[in-house]
């Protein structure tokens, strides 16, 4: 309360309390002015920080309220039969299900398989996409030839290729990763290749003026200048890889969260379906946050505000 008043008022009150000290010193000596100014700036900063903190707290509280309301309403609706609990289940039922499968250990292999498929999918997808983009950049002729094919491939719903992968690669890990790659690689290639071409011609000129060849140009300008886009593509690919993996598991798997969903659907256990979705949401969020943290770590220093 006391901090919220006008600072000059407070200061005058303080000065009143210590009249002797203020009186003894010259009021307008440079060090005094300096001190007053820095104290004032400090006060302004603290007031600003308090307001910022209050807003952050308010946001957090609102978020919690929404979550509690949503879960509570769902729970109430399920228990009181406002909605059909067989179809929509309700939170405590889902948590009981999750708790049971976690404690008997039957859930973990599913999570493990799906997470590893996803990680392999988005890392490999980003790497392959970058590699293809580099190829297109290196050979402009190839890029012109490939252009219409890439556009067609990109607009095609590639998950529909799933059955072919299963026939070729067998029902398992490989074909699921293949489905994931089919979702991620083309769009990654297009994005990163576009970025390669949009690198400011000035940077390229600087390097060429020092007599750099094409490979030096790629390593010293094109690739580092595209680094932020490559990392953000990695983030997009986390989401795309989840789509690929879940669809792939729908098609073939005997293990994995996608398999749990399709199995739950087949035996009409929607609690299993929804609780699996909950796990996917949680794991996907953790993964996304991890990639964001990686991005921040790699980009420290040179990123402009």
């Amino acid at each position, binding site marked *: 309360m006391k901090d919220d008043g006008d600072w000059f008022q407070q200061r005058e009150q303080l000065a009143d309390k210590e009249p002797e000290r203020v009186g003894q010193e010259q009021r307008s000596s440079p060090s005094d002015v300096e001190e007053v100014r820095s104290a004032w700036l400090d006060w302004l900063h603290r007031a600003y920080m308090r307001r910022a903190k209050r807003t952050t707290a308010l946001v957090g509280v609102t978020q919690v309220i929404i979550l509690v309301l949503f879960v509570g309403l769902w729970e109430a609706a399920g228990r009181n039969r406002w909605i059909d609990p067989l179809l929509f289940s309700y939170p405590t039922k889902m948590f009981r299900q999750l708790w049971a499968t976690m404690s008997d250990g039957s859930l973990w292999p599913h999570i493990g398989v799906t997470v590893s498929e996803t990680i392999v999918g988005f890392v490999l997808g980003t790497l392959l996409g970058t590699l293809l983009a580099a190829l297109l950049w290196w050979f402009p002729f190839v890029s012109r030839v490939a252009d219409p094919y890439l556009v067609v491939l990109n607009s095609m719903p590639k998950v529909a290729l799933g059955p072919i992968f299963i026939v070729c690669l067998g029902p398992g890990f490989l074909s699921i990763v293949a489905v994931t790659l089919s979702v991620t690689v083309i769009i990654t290639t297009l994005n990163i290749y576009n970025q390669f071409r949009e690198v400011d011609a000035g940077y390229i000129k*600087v390097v060429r003026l*020092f*007599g*750099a060849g094409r490979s030096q140009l790629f390593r010293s300008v094109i690739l580092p200048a595209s680094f932020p886009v490559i990392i953000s593509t990695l983030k997009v690919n986390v989401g795309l890889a989840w789509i690929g993996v879940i669809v792939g598991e729908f098609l073939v798997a005997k293990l994995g969260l996608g398999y749990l969903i399709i199995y739950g659907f087949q035996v009409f256990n929607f609690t299993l379906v929804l609780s699996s979705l909950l796990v996917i949401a949680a794991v996907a969020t953790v993964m996304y946050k991890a990639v964001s943290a990686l991005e921040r770590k790699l980009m420290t220093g*040179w*990123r*402009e505000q």
Partner: protein
Amino acid sequence: MANSDPALTLRQVTHVYVNDKGASLAVEDLNLTVQRGEFVSLVGPSGCGKTTVLSMLAGLFLPTRGEVLLNNRQVKQPSTLVGYMLQQDYLFPWRTILDNAALGLELTGSKTRAAVEKAADLLAELGLPGSGARYPHELSGGMRQRVALARTLATEPEVLLLDEPFSALDLHIKLQLEDLVKETLRRLGKTALLVTHDLSEAVAMSDRVIVLAANPGRIRCELTIPDSIRQASPMKARQLPEFQPLFDQLWAELDAAEKAGWEGSESDEG
């Protein structure tokens, strides 16, 4: 000026740009000689091929006809003998200041510890001591252009091509940098060719100013700057009594060149 040791020579140089829209003549029958240690400025209306000339001297491309010589040898590709400074600094945001200054050393394969130390010394000489570990976005425009100068000088070129390096800066910073660049180049005994739109900059910095006409680019006339202005720093030169008449003369020439350019382009189309 009948010195027999030219650093740069253009002999009957003609360049044509060809693209989907057609072929256009950028410069025609250009003859130019720059002596070792000389500071020459090119001014002219837009479209007079100033940047084309610099690009050919830097070896970015060959002239369609004629000869471009550096130390009496034909220029075929970029070399470390020539340093080039662009209008914008184009510092790489992902490299520290020192790494930016050492970029040329790295690309030419001469990045030894001694060379990097020299680059750091160069940064200090140019007024940026102790900022080698910082990143470009932490620096002001003038400071960044100093780093770009250090990057250009680090590979120890004999000839500097300056492509409007001060035009993106505030007047105050621009005058400071003009002084710094002229002083540094004179001390190091470099040959320089400056392209600029700023006539007072051309008069204040150069030994010789060449006025180009446009459509196609060709030399219109040449102005030799008297010793009194040459000896002075660019900032002081502007206050000398000889400065204003020269500036006016250059202004009149450029005005005439611009008009001639319009007439030229009209008759081309007609």
